Structure formats: structure tokens, C-alpha cells
């Protein structure tokens, strides 16, 4: 008997319905005032950490490279978006969306500029060079006093980052990265991770795909940066130091390299942990780092490995199980 599969349009409909329901339910809960101020703040924070983790996961998990300068892209996006919003060249909603796009594009351009030289190197050296670029971005932001106000901080950024805006961005980011990864381009990216030389000899333009992945990842990091700026309202370059890059990497690694679901779960858990573990706050970073070490020693692929959640697959599985169960029953009774 033929296996039951859902066709692509049906899958997309299922996903869209699920996402819209979740978003509306979330918005209702946020608007209803059940949650306190701290909870609301954390939930919004979770949002941009999800974007950061998912975008970094694209380079680390899918492309198999290890950049250590993700906070640099976030910084470029944050400053670009914040300056655009402050200038208020467009009216209302157009300004909000425009700022996000400007942030993403600025970060993506930085990503290409950094990516072209950086991606000539591999492994450890790539990690080092991106770390260097990340630090340079921070130093430049610190010294461009006339534009960024340096260490004094860029103030009076309009606070646009509402729950709806942040989570629409989360969905767009996850959706876009998911679709890229399911496409032909995504398979090319995965093949580079598995074996770069083999991929190249199969006719895949590895440089092009590496830079593309880098740029897409930087784009979403930039968007997350702008959301971050719109959330706290003040930017200082120290927000984007090496430790921030490491924090994002920690989320990706704990969640599982190459698992979007892992990134989302890890971002949510690690960001909201301080709220739950209020009395343990002093030990928070100690627990995190111990977790990281223990996970690396006992499950180097991260908590989720490269497992990804798919509603359609679960439905298919259930339907198939039911059907085969029935036929098996018939066969038995026939005997």
C-alpha cells in the first residue's frame, strides 16, 4: 500500500494556520495583563535571541563554519536601525519596517565584506578572523563619536519592539531560513558542511554559497540587533562584545548544531532561566558554563542533535500508523 504523504501546499497551510494561531494566542496573553513586567520583557528578549540563534545556526550548524563575531553583525544592524528610526524619514509603520530592512541590509553588506576574505580560511582560522572583525566593529563604533556617541551611548531610540513586531520577525526569520534550507540552495549549503572538496567537485560554487549563507545570517542578526535597539532604547558598543557572540554560540550549541527547533528551545530556556531561577541568579553563568561543558562531553551534537520538528511529518506518521494498523488487523483476521 502507498504511504500516506501530505502534499506541499497542504503542509504550508498547516504551518500557516499553526503559526497564526500561536501568534494571536500569544498576543492575547501579552495584552491581557496576566504577565508581569519582568515576564513581558523576558518574552520579548527571547524573541530576538531566537532570531540571533537561528541565524547563527545557519552558519554554524548548516554551513559547518564557526564564526565568533555574530555580535558584530548585530551591532551594525542595531546602530543602522536605531539611526534610521531616530532620523524618522518615513512616517509611522513604514519607518518601523524600513528601519528593520535598513538594519538587515547594512548587516548583510558587512557580512559580505567580512565574508569574502574570511571564508577563504577554514576552521580555527575562520573563527579567529571573525572574532577579529567583531572586535574591530566594536572599536569603530566606540570611536565614531559624532555618529554613534561612542561609549556614552546612543539614546532616545524609539521603542518600536512590541510583542507582535518581534514575533513576526521571529517567524519571518525562521520561515525564510527554513525555506532556504529546504531548497536546492540549502542542499548545496549542507553539502559544503559534509565535505567541501566533494561539494566543489560536484560543481557547487562553494565560495558563492558560503558568502550567501554568511550574508543571510548577518541580515537576520542585523534585524535582531534593530529589535534589540528598539527594545532597550539605548545602545552602547559594550553591548556587543565578544561575550555576546559567545552567548549566542552557546545557545546554538546547547540546542544542537543544525537543529532550528533546538536553537529556538535553547534560546527560550536560556533567556528565561534567570526569571525562573531568581534565587540562583548568582550561580546562573556558572550553571550555564558547566552545562555547556557537560553537554559537550556527553552529547557533543547538542541536546536536540540535528532533529527538527515538523507538524506535517507527525500527522503523516500518525495516519500511516493507523492505516498499517488496520491492514495488519485485516490480514490477521483473514488468516
Amino acid at each position, binding site marked *: 500500500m502507498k504511504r500516506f504523504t501530505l502534499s506541499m501546499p497542504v503542509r504550508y497551510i498547516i504551518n500557516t494556520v499553526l503559526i497564526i494561531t500561536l501568534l494571536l494566542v500569544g498576543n492575547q496573553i501579552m495584552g491581557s495583563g496576566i504577565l508581569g513586567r519582568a515576564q513581558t520583557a523576558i518574552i520579548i528578549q527571547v524573541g530576538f535571541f531566537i532570531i540571533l540563534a537561528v541565524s547563527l545556526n545557519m552558519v554554524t550548524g548548516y554551513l559547518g563554519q564557526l564564526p565568533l563575531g555574530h555580535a558584530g553583525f548585530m551591532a551594525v544592524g542595531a546602530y543602522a536601525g536605531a539611526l534610521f528610526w531616530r532620523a524618522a524619514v518615513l512616517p509611522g509603520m513604514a519607518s518601523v519596517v524600513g528601519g528593520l530592512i535598513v538594519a538587515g541590509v547594512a548587516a548583510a553588506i558587512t557580512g559580505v565584506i567580512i565574508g569574502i576574505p574570511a571564508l577563504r580560511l577554514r576552521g580555527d582560522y575562520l573563527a579567529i*578572523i571573525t572574532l577579529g572583525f567583531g572586535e574591530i566593529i566594536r572599536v569603530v563604533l566606540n570611536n565614531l563619536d559624532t555618529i554613534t556617541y561612542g561609549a556614552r551611548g546612543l539614546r532616545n531610540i524609539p521603542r518600536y519592539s512590541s510583542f507582535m513586531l518581534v514575533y513576526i520577525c521571529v517567524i519571518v526569520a525562521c520561515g525564510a531560513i527554513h525555506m532556504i534550507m529546504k531548497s536546492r540552495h540549502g542542499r548545496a549549503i549542507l553539502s559544503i558542511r559534509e565535505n567541501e572538496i566533494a561539494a566543489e567537485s560536484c560543481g557547487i560554487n562553494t565560495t558563492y554559497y558560503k558568502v550567501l549563507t554568511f550574508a543571510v545570517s548577518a541580515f537576520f542578526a542585523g534585524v535582531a540587533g534593530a529589535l534589540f535597539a528598539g527594545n532597550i532604547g539605548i545602545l552602547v558598543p559594550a553591548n556587543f562584545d565578544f561575550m555576546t557572540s559567545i552567548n549566542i554560540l552557546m545557545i546554538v550549541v546547547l540546542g544542537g548544531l543544525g537543529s532550528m527547533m533546538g536553537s529556538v528551545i535553547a534560546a527560550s530556556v536560556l533567556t528565561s532561566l534567570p526569571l525562573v531561577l531568581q534565587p540562583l541568579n548568582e550561580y546562573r553563568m556558572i550553571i550555564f558554563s558547566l552545562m555547556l561543558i557537560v553537554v559537550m562531553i556527553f552529547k557533543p551534537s547538542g541536546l536536540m542533535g540535528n532533529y527538527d520538528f515538523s507538524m506535517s511529518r507527525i500527522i503523516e506518521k500518525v495516519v500511516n500508523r493507523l492505516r498499517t494498523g488496520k491492514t495488519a488487523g485485516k490480514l490477521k483476521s483473514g488468516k
Partner: protein
Amino acid sequence: MSFALHLINGLQMGSIYALVALGYTMVYGIIKLLNFAHGDIIMVGGYIALFSLTLGRMPALLAALVTVAGCTLLAVIIEKLAYTPLRFAPRLSLLITAIGISILLQNLAQFFFTANDRGFPGHLLFPTGSVSIGGLSIAYTSIITVALSIASMAALHLLVKSTKLGKAMRAVSEDQGAAQLMGINVNHIITFTFAVGAALAGVGALLYSVRFPLIAPTIGAMLGLKAFVAAVFGGIGSIPGTMVGGYAIGLLEALVTAAGLSGWVDGVVFLLLIIVLMVRPTGLMGRPIMEKV
């Protein structure tokens, strides 16, 4: 400040960078691990020196020995607990574990010693005062720093080039499997390499604390990164290259400061790193890596 003084400062910092960078290079040379925790071992060394001088009221030499021994012990424990189980794991896992150890050490230090700066009594460790050469007054600490680091590096060079242990270290870094077949205990050699790197870090911790007499849980991070840049600049895995790299970074920083651009120092250091990696991806004296299919 005159230009000559800037140069002396650069030499002093360069000596410290070179010592710290050697720790990175030795570990990278032997197990291809970027030991991110190295900078934080120096931070712990700073605290050990501080407490043995103030709370323990130890004489300078004893405090120095305790610091070096403490750093060595810490590195060996880290290697045994965290790195040995990952000997055959993917390199990425090892790297992330090292980052984890680095965060752990920083936060443990913050937990036990608070995040506040603590003044370091440098005068208890090295003699104060200065000597005047050609109208230029040079602090004793600068001279001691440069001399001590050159002596340590010379000792390291002798160890690696002309002892049996050094030979074994070189063999393991060349080819672990073959070294094992020749009857070398690879595990012991790797632990020993970590220990030597950390001992140098201990000396580095003393010199650094005297140069910047404020100890805080985060001092190791930037020092570690810079020393790491020095190691990559000179060619990570190559001992003479690393020494050159250390002095180059120290002098470069001094020159940038002398030019009145002290806010840009970190940026220039990392820019240099990027240029070097672009032109010679394995550093000034690193061996090129051949890729096999």
C-alpha cells in the same frame, strides 16, 4: 611621554604577550586546540599571587613559585577533566568546551572574589625604583619583565630542543599515532605540554599584575585575546614565531598609543591580525597546512 619610553613600554607588554602566547602555541601545536581558557588561567594566577602576597604574607620568591605551581595545577586539572574525554571528539566540541571553561573560570572568580578590582601590591614582588640610562629613566620592573620573560623563553627553547621530553613533545605534535608506536605515552606528553604552557602563563600572570596592578575576574579575557592574536600573527604552533608575534603586538600597541590613537589600539591589533591571515593564513612562521582528499 617620550618615544623611547613608549618603546620600552611596548617591549614590556610584548614580553608578557609573548609568554602568554607561547601557552596558546604549545597547546595548539600538540592537540590543535585553541585553548580559550588560557587567558583566564592568567587571571587565576593574578589572584593566587595577590592572596599569597597579602593574606599569606609570603616572601616574593615563594609567592612567585606558588603562583606558577597553582597555574600549572589548574591547567592539568582542566586538561584531565574537560579535554581528555574529548580527545577523539570533533574539533568544534573541544573548542566550545574550552570556551565553556573560560566562562566558568571567570564566573567562579566573580563568585568567590566579587567583580570588584583589587589593587595588586607590585612593590612586594619586584623592587621599585628605576635606573637612568642616557637620561632615560627605566623602571626596574620593565627590566625585570623583559629579562624574566626572555629567560623563560630560553628555558622553554632548551626544553623543547634538547631534552628527551622536548623531543617527545615534538614527536607527538608531528604525528600522534607514530609517536605512540615509538613508545611515547601520548597522554602524559599532552598533559605535560599543558603544564608547561600554564607555568609560562603563571610567570605571565606575575608580570601582568605588576604592569597593571588591578586584579578583576575579567582581566584574562582581553589579555588572552591579544596574546592569541600574537600567537596567530607569528604562526600558531611555531615557538620562535610566537615570540616574534608577541613582541610585534606589544610594540605595535606602543606605536599606536604614541601616535595618540589610544582608543583605536584594540582595533589596530585585530586589523593587523586580519591582514596577516589574508596574506599568510598560517602566520609569519607557521607551517602551511596541506589538505588531503
